[in-house]
């Protein structure tokens, strides 16, 4: 089976600033992969290249064995801020992707409505985003993402803006959802614990210009209930060392 997504030596400059200096990474079908990196490294830029928001300056991107340019929008994308439209009700926000795909508003609502319970949003269909709590907004944005039925999810720091308690709750919830649905996910985060808890593999990026410092497999059994098992803590410490003191890895 070919890889779902493969980036080879992908580069990007803004003016004369190098942001991505040859990113190489891959994601297998049904795999949950995270990208960890310092703020401003260029993580969101990778997603902009994948979703067509930006043009790259070299390197190849393949999707299911074919150049990405030949495929038809295989990604469902969740931007760094929830990007809910304040003027749309929650149900119409979550149905946005289906509407853009050409579904009528009524049919799109009919398709998302049954999922509101599973996403902890039941009863809030007709509310506006301003009436939701931070965690609910993120779940609404996530529902808008997964309901598009794309081959792969791109999640940019989905829980970055939440308080620690809500974030932990959301991480557990996402893990349960992923166990149930087995989406192929590429997740951006700067939260080491989140990456270890959720992922099958983690790529650690360097500071700008970003390249992959390390690729780390997380062989912990699923479902992962315990956030602070000794094995998880050891991997976390290892990743933190790489992030805080990247020289040894760069020298090799």
């Amino acid at each position, binding site marked *: 089976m070919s890889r779902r997504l493969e980036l080879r030596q992908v580069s990007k400059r803004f003016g004369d600033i190098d942001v991505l200096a040859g990113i190489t990474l891959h994601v297998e079908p049904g795999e949950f992969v995270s990208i960890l990196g310092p703020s401003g490294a260029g993580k969101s830029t990778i997603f*902009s290249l994948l*979703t*067509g*928001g930006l043009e790259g300056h070299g390197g190849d991107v393949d999707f299911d064995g074919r150049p990405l340019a030949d495929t*038809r*929008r295989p*990604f*469902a*994308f969740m*931007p*760094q*801020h929830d*990007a809910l*439209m*304040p*003027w749309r009700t929650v149900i119409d926000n979550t149905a*946005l*992707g289906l509407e*853009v*795909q050409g579904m009528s508003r009524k049919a799109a609502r009919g398709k998302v409505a049954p999922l509101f319970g599973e996403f902890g949003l039941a009863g809030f269909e007709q*509310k*506006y*985003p*301003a*009436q*939701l*709590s931070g965690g609910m907004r993120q779940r609404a944005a996530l529902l808008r993402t997964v309901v*598009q039925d794309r081959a792969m999810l*791109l999640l940019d720091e989905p829980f970055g803006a939440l308080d620690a308690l809500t974030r932990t709750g959301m991480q557990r919830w996402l893990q349960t959802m992923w166990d149930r649905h087995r989406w192929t996910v590429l997740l951006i985060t700067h939260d080491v614990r989140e990456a270890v808890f959720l992922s099958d593999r983690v790529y650690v990026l360097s500071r700008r210009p970003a390249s992959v410092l390390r690729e780390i497999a997380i062989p912990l059994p699923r479902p992962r209930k315990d956030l602070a098992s000794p094995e998880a803590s050891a991997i976390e410490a290892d990743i933190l060392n790489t992030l805080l003191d990247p020289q040894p890895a760069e020298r090799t």
Partner: protein
Amino acid sequence: MSQPFSATLRIAVLFGKVGPALLSVGTLVLAWELYARLSGISPTTLPAPSRVLAQAIQQRQALFDNTVPTISATLAGFACSLAVAFILSVLIDFFNPLRRALFPVFIISQTLPLVAIAPLVVLWFGFGLTPKIMLVALVTFFPMLVALVQGYESTDRDISALLNSMGASRMRIFRLARLPSSLPYFFAGLRISITYAVVGAIFAEYAGAAKGLGIYMLNAKNNFRPDLVLAAVLVSALLTLALFAATVLIQRVVMPWERLDGARKS
């Protein structure tokens, strides 16, 4: 909570909102009234507010007959200006060089002194509705255009990126994101422009008209009746307030989510 209590509460809240405004206006009118009475100034120079009000009531038929044309000129001119501003704003949004080509012309149009332009426009287009529409449009068009163009540009970049990732066309992104994003700017522009519009219409009538608040003020002044001038001013002020309130009401209906911002789980 008992019904009468909440009713009292609502009145108290309402008074809390409009109370300060009533107080300041009331103080001003009272000071004016006292000055006009006690200083012995002639009513043909400075009439007391009570006299202005009495005259306004006495002359209500004439005032009404002259208000109707002003309202139609204001609304017709404003509607034209809105339609053109909207069409141009869309063209500019889709074709940016247009902005650099057109904005200098519009900025110059905003520097034209109304006193000089109004008589000329009346001279060219006669005493009918056309010159009034043109002058109202002249003063309101550019603020509306700027508000709309700025509103489109205020669109959240994440929302644009999201729609782009979904495969939405430029047209679709405009309709789904840029247009709704411009609404707060549009209404802010609307509230300012609607007050300019009334002034523009009165100015146009002042420069020449068969009927209208502007020409009524001019005639009253020429007949040494400052009380009637001020009565017409009172009417135009009420008219402006009413139009302003209408825009606020329309905004509430069109943007029901706006009042919720910052609110939680109502």
